[in-house]
């Protein structure tokens, strides 16, 4: 039986407080980590197989290894709490209910890569989260876990919180760095990667907060323990945010590789009203949609890629048989069109054109050529933009057309939605 690791504290009263955290073994990992060498820690994270939880799934240890070793170069750790991917609500829960777990991860990561400065970037809308971050950091200072000469180790680390102000794109790591510098959140061209040229020009290690929350457990229980959970290429526990037509929506921490069906039926209580499952978006709004046939697919990076989707943030949006797929695509594409930062034409204009096509079809005014037009437009956006947003934004339209084409054709033929209509 799998025991929750990342969420083990969140149901305790006052789970966000430092005394609750300390009473449950908190900051022991930092103590242990500071007795090891930075290289040893990087090696441990590599061996654990931990991959980023912010969406892209890049191996964390490899990223730590990219940071320059020269002690004379100032280095930075930046913590991504911008969570804006529709369907995703795990990071908000972590920061509101167990921020010290993340601070511990930040201290260990900073020590391992030689950073003396850590910046938290938090989504502007997360007002409670901002308050929790600030309080937790202040308490960590007071207990000597932050500041000068942490626990007598000679290692110094300062940490501060910066509030975003409403822009989904600021979750993209280079846009986040721009925003931290007080500018509009327009992504930077990569390379150089943040590990080379990051915040204020200094090498910067950027991580999602769920990734950082895994670190203390890897140090305490060992990388082999972490790597024993999950699948061949997806290791460790993962928080799955489940929303939509399920009886018990919520965050469920389970091993990577748990199947879609198991999460929906055994954990989230099955489909509401005993209805039939129709579709699942497995990893947040930007990941391609799957159908009821995919219930046995494990929620892991490689297995979802094998069926043409992505693990993304692990946020499952579950839809029953009454859901119109054209409306799903229209609504999600509207989001991306609204959130395009406007820097490049294929994303800025392409997302709007795509939205207009879907709006037209959904409203019964679609033309027969619209489906191929939408697919062609997607081809002209995907991979041809400044940042990965372009590839993300085409997924709702393209994947619903590919997997539910008949529903689009019904809209074109009958000039309205035919879902649930037996005529």
């Amino acid at each position: 039986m799998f025991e929750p690791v990342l969420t083990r504290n969140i149901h305790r009263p006052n789970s966000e407080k430092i005394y609750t955290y300390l009473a449950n073994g908190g900051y022991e990992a930092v103590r242990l980590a500071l007795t090891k060498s930075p290289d040893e820690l990087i090696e441990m994270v590599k061996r654990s197989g931990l991959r980023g939880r912010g969406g892209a799934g890049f191996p964390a240890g490899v990223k730590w290894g990219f940071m320059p070793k020269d002690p004379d170069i100032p280095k930075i750790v930046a913590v991504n709490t911008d969570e804006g991917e529709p369907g995703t609500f795990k990071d908000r829960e972590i920061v509101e209910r167990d921020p010290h777990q993340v601070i511990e991860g930040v201290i260990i990561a900073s020590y391992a890569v030689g950073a003396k400065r850590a910046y938290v970037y938090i989504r502007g809308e997360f007002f409670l989260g901002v308050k929790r971050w600030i309080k937790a950091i202040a308490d960590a200072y007071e207990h000597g876990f932050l500041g000068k000469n942490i626990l007598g180790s000679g290692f110094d680390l300062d940490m501060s919180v910066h509030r975003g102000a409403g822009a989904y794109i600021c979750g993209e790591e280079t846009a986040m760095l721009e925003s931290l510098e007080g500018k509009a959140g327009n992504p930077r061209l990569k390379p150089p990667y943040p590990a080379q040229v990051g915040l204020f020009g200094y090498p910067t290690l950027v991580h999602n907060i769920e990734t950082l929350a895994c670190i203390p457990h890897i140090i305490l229980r060992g990388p082999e323990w972490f790597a024993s959970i999950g699948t061949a290429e997806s290791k460790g526990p993962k928080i799955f945010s489940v929303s939509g037509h399920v009886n018990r929506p919520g965050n469920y921490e389970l091993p990577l590789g748990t199947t879609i069906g198991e999460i929906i039926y055994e954990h989230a209580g099955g489909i509401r009203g005993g209805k039939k499952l129709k579709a699942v978006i497995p990893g947040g709004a930007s990941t391609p949609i799957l159908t009821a046939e995919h219930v046995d697919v494990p929620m892991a990076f490689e297995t979802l890629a094998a069926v043409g989707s992505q693990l993304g943030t692990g946020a499952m949006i579950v839809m029953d048989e009454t859901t119109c797929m054209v409306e799903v695509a229209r609504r999600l594409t509207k989001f991306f069109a609204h959130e395009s930062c406007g820097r490049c034409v294929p994303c800025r204009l392409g997302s709007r054109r795509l939205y207009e096509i879907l709006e037209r079809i959904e409203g019964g005014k679609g033309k027969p050529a619209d489906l191929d037009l939408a697919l062609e437009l997607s081809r002209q956006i995907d991979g041809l933009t400044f940042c990965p947003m372009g590839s993300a934004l085409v997924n709702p339209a393209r994947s619903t057309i590919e997997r539910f084409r008949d529903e689009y054709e019904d809209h074109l033929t009958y000039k309205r939605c035919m879902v649930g209509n037996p005529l």
Partner: protein
Amino acid sequence: MAIVSSNSTTSAADPLEDGRKRAMLLAALYIAQEQFGWLSEEAIRRVAERLDLSVGQVKSTASFYTMFKLQPQGKYRIQVCEGLSCYLVGGADPIIEYVSAKLGIQPGETTADGLFTLEVVQCLAACGTAPALKVNDELYENMTFTAIDQLIERLQEQAE
């Protein structure tokens, strides 16, 4: 209370002094907005002066972010989520229409008494407790029409 950022721990000898002033722009805009209710020309000018930036720089940065308001706002900004998860459980459009009809304003508008502004926003990371909305900084989850009635009534009483 203006919670913006916590920079008190940074010492003057920090090697990352570069760009420090500019980096305070978002925090400064939050403070100005908190003071004036919105970012007027006057507020923008003052922020620019304090941070040695041009008015144009400050304005263009402020306008990039949806939470910075370049128009006067109602005392209570009701921000209804139109995200997919909220829509699937019966929220989004029906809630927007309900609040709109109740207050007699369209999204983006403010009531004549200056009490309420209605805004449509994207996923509030409360999809597991959808439908969700926010009033100023406060998040409200599992919303129903009855809960909205009570909420608006309470805000009206509070304002008196």
